[in-house]
């Protein structure tokens, strides 16, 4: 960002640039993976996260704190993913998840069909339940952090988690 032709970045924008680089290195991959669970195609997931980073950079003067920025990024990724899902008229082609290069014995032993059943059931959950489940069981976020990312109360988080897990339990029983 710094050093663009004709550009003389202010101190504020230099801070934002530096923060952007640091947050990208630390969190971009995990946020793309999170988005991939909320959406169902990698291309959209990457775009959503990229847009979130761009938006964060734009609003840096209000954030000015990497911790706040990470929370903002998560919230933006969740919201944008939700918007994307709403705007889809026809379900996009679903590309099968790539096989791991060096899968552990435990992963290889898992029945891939039953795993796909859980993922398919995840995709069918209402948006809020899917978000809560993904943030909790993939993101390992606390209830407070989930509430902030989703913009709901802690009570609502509990409700969405409870309902989401209940809906997935039938499929999880098949994989136990």
């Amino acid at each position, binding site marked *: 960002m710094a050093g663009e032709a004709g550009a003389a970045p202010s101190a504020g924008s230099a801070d934002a640039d530096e923060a952007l680089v640091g947050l990208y290195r630390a969190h971009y991959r995990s946020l793309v993976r999170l988005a991939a669970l909320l959406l169902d195609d990698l291309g959209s997931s990457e775009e959503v996260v990229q847009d979130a980073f761009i938006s964060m950079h734009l609003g840096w003067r209000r954030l000015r704190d990497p911790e706040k920025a990470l929370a903002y990024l998560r919230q933006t990724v969740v919201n944008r993913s939700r918007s994307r899902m709403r705007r889809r008229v026809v379900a996009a082609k679903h590309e099968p998840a790539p096989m791991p290069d060096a899968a552990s014995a435990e992963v290889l032993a898992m029945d891939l069909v039953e795993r796909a059943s859980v993922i398919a059931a995840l995709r069918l959950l209402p948006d809020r339940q899917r978000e809560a489940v993904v943030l909790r069981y993939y993101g390992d976020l606390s209830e407070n952090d989930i509430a902030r990312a989703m*913009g709901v109360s802690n009570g609502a988080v509990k409700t969405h988690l409870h309902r989401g897990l209940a809906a997935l339990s039938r499929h999880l029983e098949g994989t136990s």
Partner: protein
Amino acid sequence: MNHEDKLRQILRAEVDTIEPSPAGWDRIKDGVVVRRRRRVWQRSALAAATALSLVAVIALVVNRDDESNRANIVPATDAPTPEPSPSDPAPSPTGQSASIAADDPLPIVWPFSTRRQIDQWQANPSSHASLRDGDTAVREFVKTYLGLSGVDVGPAGAAAGSQYYPVTRRIVASDPSTEITICTVQLTQNYGGSPSSPGPWVVTSVIGGEAGSDNVLTITSPVFDDVHVATSPLHVTGTVKAVDESVRVEVRTTDPSTTTKGYRTLGEAHAMAGMEAPWAADVTFVADPKSVGGVVLAGTASPADGLPSRIAVTPIAFASSKTTSDSDSSAASYPAQFVAVEKGRIGLYDTKTGTRVRYLTETGASDPSVTPDGAFVVYVHMLHECAAEIRKVAIAGGSPVVLEPSVSGHVASLPGVSKYGELAYGLRPCDSYETEIIVGTQHFTTSESLIEMAWTPDGRRIAALTGTCCDGGSEIIVISPSDGKRSDAVDNAPPPDGQSCMSTAVDYTSSGTMVTAETCWTEDRPDLPRANRVIRYDPAGPRVLIDVAEEIEDLDVDRSAQQFLVVTTPCTNCADEAYTVRRLRPGSGSVTVARGLTQPAWAE
């Protein structure tokens, strides 16, 4: 292994092998540059091209100075007319020709800064799939140069000698938290003589509305169905501030009869660097979309180098809304019209006679609110019992636009738009009464149902009336979206002796004073009639303004704060016919306006 651990394992197995593309970093960098570059004004060569019907505020640079048409409305300085600079900056769409500080007051979005950039974009075949494919051209332009997705493109229109593709009234970045990117863009293609040999696409910007103090630009509408057309001619005023260099601003109206330029100059203003200049013009709008008409406010180049100079736009004022009054000359005037719901449709009604002027929506509509500019009604449209969209329709007439699509398994309610164009609404699951209040990307939960919401006139807070209506309690909370804070429940006015009261409606006066309607009853004596009143929460304390016999279910306060439009009902869950719209004025009693209507709102 329990279900939770199993789920963790499955989710990680599903995505932990995903490696994002390294190109993502380049896209982020490009996106940041595009966002920065948006804050540079565009040269006016575009305005000199085809320039069809534009409205209100625009940032286009003027190169011509037509003395004969100049209306000497405002004093002009003798700033020299600049010559175009021979050395344009590098014309890369991702380049940047001006340094922008984060706090600069420049809300308008525009991608090009030089004529050369426009020419290069138009000549570049990869800029759009086909010179004839306006739809693709618009989408590619907006995506590439404004970095926005989810663009709605209006239907192709035609004017003499050209065709155009207007982008609909709002381009909202896919992240609603983005503050600045609200504009309407129009691509116009000259026929160059015949439709079979179209010329290049010309990009013009159509930006109408006002810039708020936090640089959020509120868009009104493209001129074709702009409500101001109906009230033309208008006296239009505004101010412009030159941010870093002196500028000349010209107010024009497009005029197809002038074959040389296509526009007439109505007035101009000169602003020295750092100073403000007022401008004003009397404009007659043209209603026919096939004939062009409207107002163009053009920002000029700096006298020093001819490049676009930044200006800050302040609100544009149009003629005030129409009002009427009773025959008694001592009576205060009140808005001539109001909107309300009648048998599942929203209509526009005459306040004096109660008769319907016209329907504004089809069936399935409810929860109307009028935008602060008085031009639109925002409302809920039920697609089916568990799906609702939020739509907007012009009071002057026209097709509705979807502001928020339906959310699977949820029902939207009570949309309202702030002074800055920010939309707030309620959203609840179909099987639950627990409603979330949504403002942009922020969600505020309530543990109860949402009965009514009202923005403060300054657009900074929302009052939400929540509760299990009519058979339990209710409370009013005030939310501040900017910092996410929520107040404690507003203390109700002291109830009459021996009675309990609850709020049933809430609104704000134009000065920001909260007004509520309350119903009061005697505990354990449901046979006694309820007392119903309108309370105004003055700084000194709540004050009862009006007592009414029937329960008030809806309340809207006009701008003068002297006329209250209410709906009263003799019972909860009465049939529509039992609802009465009344006009109340403190000290003057009530006037029955109409029956069988609900959820009225002043159309002002």
